[in-house]
């Protein structure tokens, strides 16, 4: 038996025993690469995800809504940071990760390439986009890679408020004037299908799924999670008195779940490839924020260096 195959055997034993892999443990290169790709995409999504909502902070309809939105966006910055840190334990540094985002080499969730046109979008995003994210993230708390799993525990704890505040916005609008209700319905119409796309391609077309499940990075397939999301969300839309924009949506008694219409995968791939309504705007905003912050980083580094010098002089004196 070669050295690598015995190491790999031990690695798989740890995985099968539901133990965790920690940063300094041996792991297959492909496991490391898969995690770096997944965790960094996840971190980038949190960071870019601040932009569509940031758009509405100054125009929130009340102080309460403004506080909630500020707190939510701040959480997303925090989630990005937890995830970048987890990713760095795999041996890639922060600067490289940011560069991959800024050059477009790394992806982030395509959902953030759609525009936030009305205040109701803040409700729909919290309810649907955060709802779908939670559905994806809860099983990741049991991911086989320790630092990722621990980061996800923190993220999930904080994410629940995001969804509830979104649903509350939708509730208030749905019970409001006819115009407000129409605004809520319009937001649902625009966010429903992109939210279903958040779970990724159908299982039959998903390239990374099989190994990820074997390695217990993923626990459920894209289609399983999407089905759960639909089953959970349809009754919530009914409670709001809103209509899900899918004429084929129908409860299937045999499978105790909803059948739903086909997803427009052409749209999905077109947005992934950079042709969504806001891809360019999002990336430009991110790069600009980074560049505008460079003098702050330089000043902080110069200050730290000077403090260290003063400290050294006083020690030797």
């Amino acid at each position, binding site marked *: 038996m070669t050295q690598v195959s015995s190491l790999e055997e031990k690695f798989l034993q740890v995985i099968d025993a539901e133990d965790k892999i920690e940063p300094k443990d041996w792991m297959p290169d492909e496991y490391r690469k898969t995690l770096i790709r997944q965790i960094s995409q996840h971190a980038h999504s949190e960071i870019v995800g601040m932009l569509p909502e940031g758009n509405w902070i100054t125009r929130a309809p009340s102080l309460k809504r403004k506080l909630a939105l500020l707190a939510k966006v701040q959480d997303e910055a*925090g989630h990005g*940071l937890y995830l970048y840190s*987890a990713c*760095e334990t795999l041996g890639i540094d922060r600067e490289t990760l940011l560069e991959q985002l800024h050059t477009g080499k790394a992806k982030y969730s395509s959902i953030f390439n759609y525009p936030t046109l009305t205040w109701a979008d803040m409700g729909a995003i919290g309810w649907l986009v955060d709802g779908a994210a939670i559905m994806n993230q809860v099983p990741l708390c049991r991911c086989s890679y320790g630092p990722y799993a621990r980061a996800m525990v923190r993220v999930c704890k904080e994410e629940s408020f995001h969804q509830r505040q979104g649903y509350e916005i939708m509730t208030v609008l749905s019970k409001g004037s006819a115009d407000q209700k129409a605004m809520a319905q319009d937001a649902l119409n625009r966010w429903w299908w992109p939210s279903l796309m958040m779970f990724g391609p159908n299982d039959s077309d998903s390239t990374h799924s099989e190994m990820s499940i074997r390695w217990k990075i993923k626990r459920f397939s894209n289609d399983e999670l999407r089905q759960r999301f639909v089953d959970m969300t349809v009754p919530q839309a009914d409670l709001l008195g809103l209509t899900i924009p899918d004429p084929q949506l129908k409860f299937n008694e045999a499978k105790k779940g909803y059948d739903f219409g086909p997803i427009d995968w052409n749209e999905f791939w077109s947005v992934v490839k950079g042709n969504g309504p806001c891809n360019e705007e999002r990336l430009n905003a991110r790069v600009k924020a980074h560049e505008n912050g460079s003098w702050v980083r330089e000043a902080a580094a110069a200050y*730290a260096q000077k403090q260290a010098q003063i400290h050294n002089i006083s020690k030797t004196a």
Partner: protein
Amino acid sequence: MNNNWPLYEVFIRSKNGLSHKHVGSLHASDADMALENARDVYTRRSEGVSIWVVKAADIRASDPGDASFLFEPAADKIYRHPTFYDVPDEVKHM
């Protein structure tokens, strides 16, 4: 030159009476900034009453490959545990 700020590991005491516990890490230009950022990143919901930050480069960690020779010798030293010793049933509170 590496433009990355140094990495700091963050430890939080959730309340007095408990130890500081590792919660994650962050980059900062110096320890003061690490402390300020740790407060914003790791204690947004009353998670702590005290924070330690330590430069990750200053931590020496054991190698997982050494785990067996470091930790397995403890496994066969059962005489270090109270249950190894027989005392009469009549003896209370021991």
